[in-house]
Structures are given as C-alpha cells and as structure tokens.
C-alpha cells in the first residue's frame, strides 16, 4: 500500500484522517500506532512481525545499555551489530524479498540506540511509544530518516494547527501529482529507451537525463508526501531535498540530495571517526568508509560499490583541489560540471550488470547519430520532460509565492489541482501504478 496506491488514497487515508481528527488529542498517538500497524501489515505478515521484533529488541536493549554494568559497552556494540546484521542478511541474500522499508527503519533504530548511548536522550520506557516511532507509516517505508527525539516530541503533542493541516495536504497532493503524472511516466520513457533495439549516443544520453529526472522526482515526491502527511498530523519532518540539480559542486549536491541519509552517515559514522579534523590521510580514509557504506546501503550489487567509490574520488578531489579553483569559474560551467558528473554517475546507479554498463558506455561515447530514434522519444515526451525539468528548478515555488494573493490565479490553481487529482486517479486506474524507486534500496 504505497502512498500512490488506490487502497491508500481512497480508503486508508480518508478513514485514518477522519478517525484521527475525531479522536481526543491524548489518544491520537494510539490512532497513529494502529494506523501504522494496519498500513505496515498490509505488506505482509512476515514483514509486520519482523519490524515489531526488531523494534522490541532495540527497545529492550536500549534500557540495558543505560544500566550501569561492565557489559554495557559490549552490549551497545552488539546491538549495533545485530541491527546491521539483520539489514545485511535481508539486503545481501538475493533470494529473499526485501522487507518493506528495512533500510530506513533499521537506520532509525540505530540512530535511537546511539542517541541513548551518548546520553542525548533517555531510553523510552513505553514500548508502544517506541513502536509508534519505529513503525510510523509516514516514514517507515522510505524515510525521512529521523531522530527519536524530534519525532517523540511531536508525538507527545499531536495538535496540528489548521493552516498546517491545509498546507500539509497541499504538499502531499503536489507530491502525489509529481509522482504519478511525472515520475512514473519518466520511468516508462526510461524503460522504453533502455529496451530500444536500436540504441545510439543521443538516445542513451536522453535515457540518462530521463533517469536523473525520474530518480529525483520519484524520491522527492515521496518525501513531499511523507512530509505533508506528517505536517497534517502535527509531526515535523526534516527536508530531504533542496533542489539538488541546482548544486554548484558535487560536495554541494550531496548537501541537497537525500539530506537525512547524508546526515545520518555524517552524524553516526563520519564525525565519530574524526571527520575532517584529523590527518589528511585519515580524512581521506574516513571519506572512503562513508562512501563505501553509502554505496552498499543502496544495493547489494557491485555497481553500487563502484558508484560509491566514484563519489568518494570526486568528493576527495573537490575537497583537496577542485573546490577552491572552481570558485573562479562562471556559474554556468560549475552547473555543467555537476550535471555531467551526475549523469555519468547514474550509469553505475541504474545498471546492475557489469557487461551492460560497459556496453552502455561504449554506445554512449560512440557518437553515432545515424539512428534518429531519440527524436521520436523526445517528441513524444517533450512536454513531460519540460515539466520534469521545471520541477527541478526554483521557478514553480517562486511563481506560486508571487501569485498566491492573486484571486484569479487562486481560482485557476484550485481548478488545475482538482483536474490533476482526477487525472492522477485515472493514471493509477489505468494500471500505471509503480512503486517508488527507493523502495528497493
């Protein structure tokens, strides 16, 4: 039951919201827990039992970790290893279906355990409270990865202001439209290109651009929906994206892309290892560890490791050499540099098989333009691609802000959104439903 499924949109969400708002404030946390259990168990009984067992184990261990005993450090490390082992077991055992959201909820559990260990927070005494954090349907499948402290503070006072309910809903609706009308159609285009019998340089370039747009719009639309839902319930989630394709360096890009994951690695891996406040070689080593982990987190195939190494190399070069020199470049060239690096990187991100990667690169750089298939795909999808590019820029937000007090614009805005919402339902009914890309990470 993804956020973009009819089960969720037509049944789960309206019923859940109605019950939530009709329930007195102090019981709303319980409603969220019940809703989350229903939501999560819909993905399968095994998945549901697994997440409850993992949450329960972390809940118990967090209490023991804070007890004064000589074993508490060992216990802490064992807890971390337990979490990572479970994640690795499911991620690297190719024959098993990945339990929904495990890459995300395990990280939430780890962040909780570490926060308890470093005494940032006290261990939660109420199991149900902890379970609500661990299973919360807004973030359980694909993040944002959050700290226990921030979510728990919100859960203690679930009383959203009216304007937050409205704007949260708008955020959710816009995310839904973005996912179903733009990202999913980009996905269809990407698949058509990759399955084309007559590939060529421009076709594969178009494929890479399409993938870049799809990945961002798919994941950021999910984040919009999660953040919007949270806002409606009175839960404040951190932002996950900040116009990443407008970055002016790769270092900058990773500050704007999947921010909560980058922060997790920064906070729980990079900084504890000393970050950049160590010797030069140690710093490079720290970066290597973080990027290998980032690559491994995304998938169990070799290509993701290469992808991680690729960014390790580029970030290291930037930090020690390029960043200073790039400042003198006109901003156009900095953008161009970022786009080129990103597009090339997506080859390793989107194609799993090594031979296929080599083949793709060969064709991409063959500069053979005798085949004009790409013109057909470009023509068929011109409006889609333009809309997708527009959504990567700041223009839509700026424009809405500028016109938000204009009466005519407001009426048009309402009409367009309603039409788009009906169109979204039409698309889902037409069978174009496809799960979010990051579901598989």
């Amino acid at each position, binding site marked *: 039951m993804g956020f973009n*499924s*009819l089960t969720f949109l037509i049944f789960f969400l309206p019923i859940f919201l109605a019950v939530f708002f009709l329930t007195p404030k102090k019981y709303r946390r319980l409603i969220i827990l019940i809703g989350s259990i229903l939501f999560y168990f819909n993905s399968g009984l095994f998945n549901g039992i697994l997440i409850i067992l993992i949450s329960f184990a972390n809940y118990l261990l967090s209490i023991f970790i804070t007890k004064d005993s000589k074993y508490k450090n060992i216990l802490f490390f064992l807890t971390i290893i337990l979490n990572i082992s479970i994640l690795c077991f499911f991620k690297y055992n190719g024959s098993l279906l990945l339990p929904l959201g495990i890459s995300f909820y395990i990280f939430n559990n780890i962040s909780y355990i570490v926060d308890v260990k470093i005494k940032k927070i006290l261990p939660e005494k109420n199991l149900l409270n902890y379970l609500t954090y661990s299973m919360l349907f807004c973030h359980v499948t694909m993040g944002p990865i959050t700290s226990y402290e921030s979510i728990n503070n919100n859960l203690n006072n679930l009383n959203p202001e009216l304007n937050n309910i409205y704007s949260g809903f708008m955020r959710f609706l816009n995310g839904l439209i973005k996912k179903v009308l733009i990202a999913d159609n980009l996905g269809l285009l990407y698949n058509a290109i990759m399955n084309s019998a007559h590939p060529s340089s421009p076709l594969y370039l178009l494929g890479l651009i399409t993938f870049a747009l799809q990945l961002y719009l798919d994941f950021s639309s999910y984040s919009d929906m999660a953040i919007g839902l949270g806002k409606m319930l009175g839960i404040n989630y951190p932002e996950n994206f900040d116009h990443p394709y407008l970055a002016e360096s790769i270092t900058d890009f990773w500050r704007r892309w999947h921010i909560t994951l980058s922060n997790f690695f920064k906070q729980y891996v990079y900084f504890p290892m000393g970050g950049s406040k160590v010797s030069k070689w140690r710093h490079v080593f720290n970066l290597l560890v973080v990027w290998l982990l980032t690559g491994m987190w995304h998938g169990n195939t070799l290509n993701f490791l290469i992808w991680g190494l690729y960014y390790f190399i580029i970030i290291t070069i930037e930090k020690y050499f390029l960043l200073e020199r790039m400042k003198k470049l006109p901003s156009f060239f900095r953008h161009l540099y970022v786009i080129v690096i990103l597009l090339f990187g997506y080859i390793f991100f989107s194609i799993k098989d090594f031979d296929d990667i080599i083949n793709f690169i060969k064709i991409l750089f063959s500069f053979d333009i005798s085949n004009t*298939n790409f013109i057909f795909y470009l023509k*068929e999808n011109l*409006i889609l691609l333009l809309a997708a590019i527009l959504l990567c820029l700041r223009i839509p937000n700026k424009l809405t802000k500028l016109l938000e007090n204009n*009466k005519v614009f*407001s009426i048009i805005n*309402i009409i367009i*959104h309603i039409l788009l919402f009906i169109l979204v339902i039409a698309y889902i*009914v037409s069978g174009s439903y496809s799960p979010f890309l990051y579901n598989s990470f």
Partner: protein
Amino acid sequence: MKEVVNKILLILTFCITIFFSVMFIVTKKETFSYEENRYLSNFELGNIESYINDHFPFRSILISLKNKFEVSIGKTLINDVYIGKEGYLIPTFTNSNNKDLIIDTINNFSLNKNVDVMIIPDSILINEDKLYYHLPVSEESEINYLYSKLKNTNNIDVVNSLKLENDKNNNMYFKSDHHWTTYGAFIAYQEYLKNKDIKSVLQDDFNIVTVSKNFKGTSSSKILGFSLEENIDLFLNDNSLTVEYVYEKQTTSSLYNLEYLNKKDKYSLFLDNNHALIKVSNNSINSNNSIVLIKNSYANSFVPFIVNNYKYTYIIDLRYYGNSVSEFINSNNINDVLILYNLNNLYSDMSIIKLK
C-alpha cells in the same frame, strides 16, 4: 488567500475521494470487462490493489480520460499502440531475441517435407503511411531475414501484394484490431494459389456479406476512448462443409460461429476462435487432397478460402496442440503443409517452437 485555497482544495479532494470510495462500495462488481476484453481480478487478500483497480467506479471513463490527455500533450504511442491517421490504431511490432530458435525449429521440421511458409506482415508495415512521426518499422527486413534463413521451405512473400492492394482500398487490416480483414486474407490466398500453380479465383466468385458494423477490436481495448466501429465482411459461397473440432468432439457445417457477433471479441467468429485441431472436409470436392495448416489466429480468416481447394483441411494451433505434427502428417497422408503466422505473434507467443 493561500490558506483559503489550500482549505478549498482539501475539502474538494476529500469529497472526490469519498465519492469514489462510496461508489466503489455500492457499485456491482463485474467479472468481465467488455471494453477491455478481459476478466477482472477477484477479491483476494494479497491482491486488494488490483481488485480495487479493476472494479474502480467509472474505470473506462477514467482510462479514456487519461488517453485523451496523453494525446493532447503530443503522445501518439500509448500502451504499445500507435494512434494513427484516419482512426487507425496500430499495434507496435516487438522484435525477438529468439529468432534462431524459430528458424532452427522450422528448418528441422521441414527437412524432407514439402512445407510452405507464409509470414504475414502486420498492419504497422502495410499501413505505415497512416502513422504520424514514428519509430522505424523493421518488419519487412525481418521477414526477409527469416525467409533467407529458412532453407528447406518454400517461402511465399505476401508483403508486396498486400501493400499494392492496400494502396487501392485501404482495407487489408482492421483499424482497431491487430488482425487482417478477410480482404487481406483473400490477397494472401491468391498469392498462395499463384505459388502452388492452382487456378486462381476472383473476389466476384464469392458473395461478400457484412455481418457486423460495430466491430471494435483488440487495439481499441488497449486504448479506450479512440476507436471507430468497423465492418466485418465474410466471403461466402455454397460449398458443403463438415467442420470437426477434433478434441472437443463437435461437428458443425459452418466455419463461422456467429454467436460472437454479440460479444466484444467478434474476430473470434472465424472458426470459433482458436482450437488445438480442426478438420474441415469439403464435400463438394471429389479428389482426396489434403493440407495441414500450422497457424495462429491470423489464419482463422484464411481458412474459409483454402478449404475451397482441398478435400481435407487440418488446422493445428500449436498453442494448444501438444503432439508431433510430423507424425500427424505421416499418418494422415497429407499432401501440403502450410505454416501461416503473422510476424508479431510469431515472435511474441513463440508457440512455433513446439513444432516437431
């Protein structure tokens, strides 16, 4: 103002949502979709999403809406069907990676036999001029490639004659279906007779009767909201036939099951859709000559012609027939063997590899 807009949108969307969920609950659940020509999913716990999807209120209107929207933003290729000029809905051609397997199968089968092969091009090749800007159509080179590799068979080319004839009347293929019309099948029949040195027949030798004026074919099921209604014409004559559905143990005197005229899937009226083995005896013929037709559904509208030249016509559909065709040929003293497939289905269903 912003807050008011958001509030109105929340309320409106909520109303639309409730409307759909109430409609979903109160509407009667069909088991079959006439427009889409397929069975709808049943309620199962692990399958709730596709159940809701299939039984969603106003489903076909919503799908039409989606298609109309896509066309309005410049799309011409939807759900593997091109929206062409003059109401043509033309399925795309899907290439195959298993050509060698098909070639080997036919080459092995036809060793020491007299086998004719007719690979029928699809509408996309013959009606390429009806397409707007489109991907290159490679069907002709595909057929030529297959023919160049099929060493032991007599390969009959029908591309040119279909093209020529289509230029005159534009009636070789349905606009809304992936099949050819009886006119297309007739051209192939003439081509076959020419090739076998049998006296040719003319269109005037038949009594052409329009049995349906509201046929909407498979392509129209794939893109709701765009189809025209078309005629189905039959070429009739007064032969006396015995049509035997061998495994079903049923016998009739007609090649047509006109009950299908009341259904969506009207092309199935030819030979009562697809069966493993059908034997047609032409009681008006005195000689004892016989033919085995190894075929897919394209041949169903070809059969009414070929039965005029053979005492016994055996029609084998490899999707359902599991036995050895070679043994069948030997034990029934068959004179001619014809493999008749349209290219797209030859590649996509791969039933031909069961040929032995």
